[in-house]
């Protein structure tokens, strides 16, 4: 059983902070792209059983019903999708209408993520988003009516700084079962790189992060950036965090199958000429897989049980990482509870320190 990821690399407006593979959307996705995506799915030579499907982007919600039908038809031909499988879909507030929501449900989509980012017009302007706060509210209302399993993505660390409190309050009012809160980062490639010195001070960043932790106290803070009511965790993302296998389709999408981490060609022309062609494919060594697995698990509040490590790798966690883990426990980044290592709130906030210690 693997996860299936589909990368839909189109956006109506390119957000200046985003570092994903994307291109501006002009009316309709080019047929060439849908052809290529379908071809890639048809050619795929890996496992047949899918336990989750996730449409990410870019902006999957720009696709028309017809385009989505073609993709779903290819998916169901190639994969046996488990009846209880999560079929997740990212949508921008602009694209959300009662009709669109109904269509997505009819196609089998059972989990919707709304790209709200903020409920404050000032912050949305700073982030260069296409929608305003009003559209975000409306989209959330409609989505909550159509989907029981839905969530929203929020970004903190934007300006005005005080907008974050308003956004948290507005988010609570919509009571989504799932919330992702991402700290704004100024990556080297997107236009925002030039504005890196605007980044909020670490103390502000942490204050906003902890404000979310407090605001969503009824949710489980189950991953560094994610909150969910019990049973509403993102099943697809959990695959990544547990370092399980997944296949990615679309330009620049990554896969992890048979110990090989690979990436699709990301330039559109290359991808369309050779769907599924790889720009890189790295056979990870057993020790690389082990350390990546531990690092990923320790992004999750559920942490890593010693037993799980032994079952997966036939080795002892204590022998491999005992010393590093004890140091992290001492630093207050991890807790050791009955043979299960889990990150504390501080361990979330300084999660890379855990990775650094494990890499020894």
């Amino acid at each position, binding site marked *: 059983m693997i996860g299936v990821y589909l990368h839909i690399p189109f956006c109506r407006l390119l957000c200046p902070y985003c570092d994903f593979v994307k291109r501006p959307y002009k009316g309709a996705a080019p047929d060439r792209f849908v052809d290529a995506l379908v071809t890639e799915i048809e050619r795929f030579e890996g496992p047949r059983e899918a336990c989750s499907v996730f449409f990410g982007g870019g902006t999957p919600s720009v696709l028309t019903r017809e385009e989505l039908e073609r993709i779903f038809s290819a998916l169901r031909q190639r994969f046996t999708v488990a009846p209880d499988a999560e079929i997740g879909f990212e949508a921008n507030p602009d694209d959300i209408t009662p009709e669109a929501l109904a269509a997505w449900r009819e196609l089998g989509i059972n989990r919707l993520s709304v790209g709200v980012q903020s409920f404050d017009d000032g912050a949305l302007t700073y982030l260069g988003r296409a929608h305003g706060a009003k559209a975000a509210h409306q989209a959330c209302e409609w989505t909550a009516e159509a989907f029981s399993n839905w969530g929203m993505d929020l970004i903190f660390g934007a300006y005005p700084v005080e907008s974050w409190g308003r956004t948290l309050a507005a988010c609570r009012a919509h009571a989504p079962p799932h919330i992702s809160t991402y700290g704004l980062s100024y990556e080297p490639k997107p236009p925002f790189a030039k504005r890196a010195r605007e980044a909020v001070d670490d103390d502000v960043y942490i204050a906003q992060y902890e404000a979310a932790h407090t605001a969503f106290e009824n949710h489980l803070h189950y991953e560094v950036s994610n909150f969910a009511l019990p049973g509403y965790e993102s099943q697809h993302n959990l695959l990544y965090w547990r370092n399980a296998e997944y296949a990615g389709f679309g330009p620049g999408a*990554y896969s992890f199958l048979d110990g090989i981490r690979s990436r699709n060609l990301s330039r559109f022309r290359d991808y369309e000429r050779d769907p599924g062609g790889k720009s890189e494919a790295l056979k990870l060594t057993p020790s690389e897989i082990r350390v990546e697995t531990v690092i990923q698990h320790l992004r999750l509040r559920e942490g890593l049980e010693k037993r799980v490590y032994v079952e997966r790798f036939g080795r002892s966690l204590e022998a491999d990482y005992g010393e590093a883990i004890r140091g992290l426990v001492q630093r207050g980044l991890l807790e050791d509870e009955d043979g299960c290592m889990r990150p504390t709130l501080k361990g979330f906030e*300084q999660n890379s320190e855990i990775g*650094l210690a494990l890499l020894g």
Partner: protein
Amino acid sequence: MATPLDRIRNFCIIAHIDHGKSTLADRFLQLTGAVDERNFQDQSLDTMELERERGITIKSVSVRLTYTADDGTEYVLNLIDTPGHVDFSYEVSRSMAACEGALLLVDAAQGVEAQTLANAYKAIEQDLEIIPVINKIDLPSADVDMARRQIEEVVGLDGDSAILASAKEGIGTQEIIEAIIGRVPPPKGNRDAPLKALIFDAVYDTYRGVVIHTRVKQGRMRKGMTIKMMSNGLQYDVNELGVFTPAIKPAESLETGEVGYVICSIKTLKATKIGDTITDVANPAPHPLPGYQEVNPLVFCGLYPAGETDYEELRDALERLQLNDGSFQYTPDSSDALGLGFRLGFLGLLHMEIIQERLEREFDLTLVTTIPNVGYRVLKSSGEEMIIENASQMPAPNEIERIEEPYIEAEIITPTAFLGAVCDLCKDKRGIHVRIDYIDNNRCMVFYQLPLAEVVMDFYDRLKTISRGYASLEYRLLDNRPGKLVRLDILLNGEPVDALSTIVHRDRAEQIGRTLASRLQRLIPRQQYEVAIQAAVGNKIIVRETVKAMRKNVTAKCYGGDITRKRKLLERQKEGKKRMKQVGRVEVPQEAFMALLQVDGDRDK
């Protein structure tokens, strides 16, 4: 056959950077056919890559030109190139001692600059015949009358005798050569007297070892002769000698009045002293030529391997560099904070920069440089006297009777518009005003006595900044003077970091300490624990800054594709940490040591 004395002329060119010395030398080479047009490369005499980039001559080169004058007589003209910077003033004076005449090159648009003036005075002291040349007369901004007036009033030479030229356009070249023949006296000296030859330069050649540049003052030097260096008595056999045309051209002998090279299996430049006298072992001269000095370094700094570079690589590079540059000194040194490294001594600040740059460029090294300092003379209460080249050697305050620091006299030529700013800078640098001379309505010469330590810090950069590049600086060493000097220590979480200690004036300690601490505060990344940065004099803490404890180090979004990429990023971060210097429990990035160099340039706080 030896050229008769009256057919030889030995001369050098005195000029400010960018006033056209190299271009004029190129014209001479072309006019005399020394370099044919086909092989001509602009500025043939500036051989080092660094020299071309900076437009200055670091190592001098000499060249022998053959020229048939208007009267049909063939002359040998030896152009002796001089180093172009204040740090090498002793070497300049030795190059001049090999000449009878000098061309004083003045830019028609810019007039006389400080460095030109200092060198012109040196030439006058040595009784050289000076021919003023006003260059760049083709420029729209050329003001020939202004240049003439300055030659008269500032340098004290006859402005009417100046030749008008444009080296770039080739104007005046022949007239200059005719003037050299007509006005510069031929060399004197008895060709049958015991050999006395002046070493005015030496370079290292990978295949031949040390190549000495020499001017025979009396007697003759022959191939196969056994010679002796009069400063240290070392003897060598002459394997080869000859002249530069500018290509190397072997000969059987060098006669009185001639300029050329000598090669005699000398393996290291350290063994060759500029200004030394060569004589014949079989028939030695009783006294050496006047003017020889041991050159002592004025500026010191620590040099430590960083990044991928290790100690052995640095040691090898220093050994190899010293083969072809004997002007700097180095001794092994160690620092608690930086580990094993070297302490280097330089003739001046530019010299220091050049050596550091050559090490990094030619040997591909990554280096950490400590704050440069001067040598201090310390008189201890016990009566003992010591020279301190490193702040960490400073005795405890109660053991010190007196500390003396070297002073210089700075001569700054500046447009009058910047006079106020220049004086403020000098005052800020503990300068003692001497006088101001006006060159004309627009420019003046400012004389200040300054502690060398203050000049070493960032004086030159700031002078250039406040004068928009127009002010020029020349200095000479005066003497040692007692001062209220203290050692300023930097402590991280209470532990002193030896590599960050400096000797400063007591009145400036707090200001410098504050700048150092705030700069460090920005350079030291947040760590697990709060880091206290303190500046202290003796046991007294004068400044405190804090690096708050780390609160955040996280990748917010981590999805499928990012897992391996994230691991690699962490591995790189890990490597970066390894390259940091561990001071107690504090990790200090190497940039912290380097960025501290420009203490006073820190204006952003």
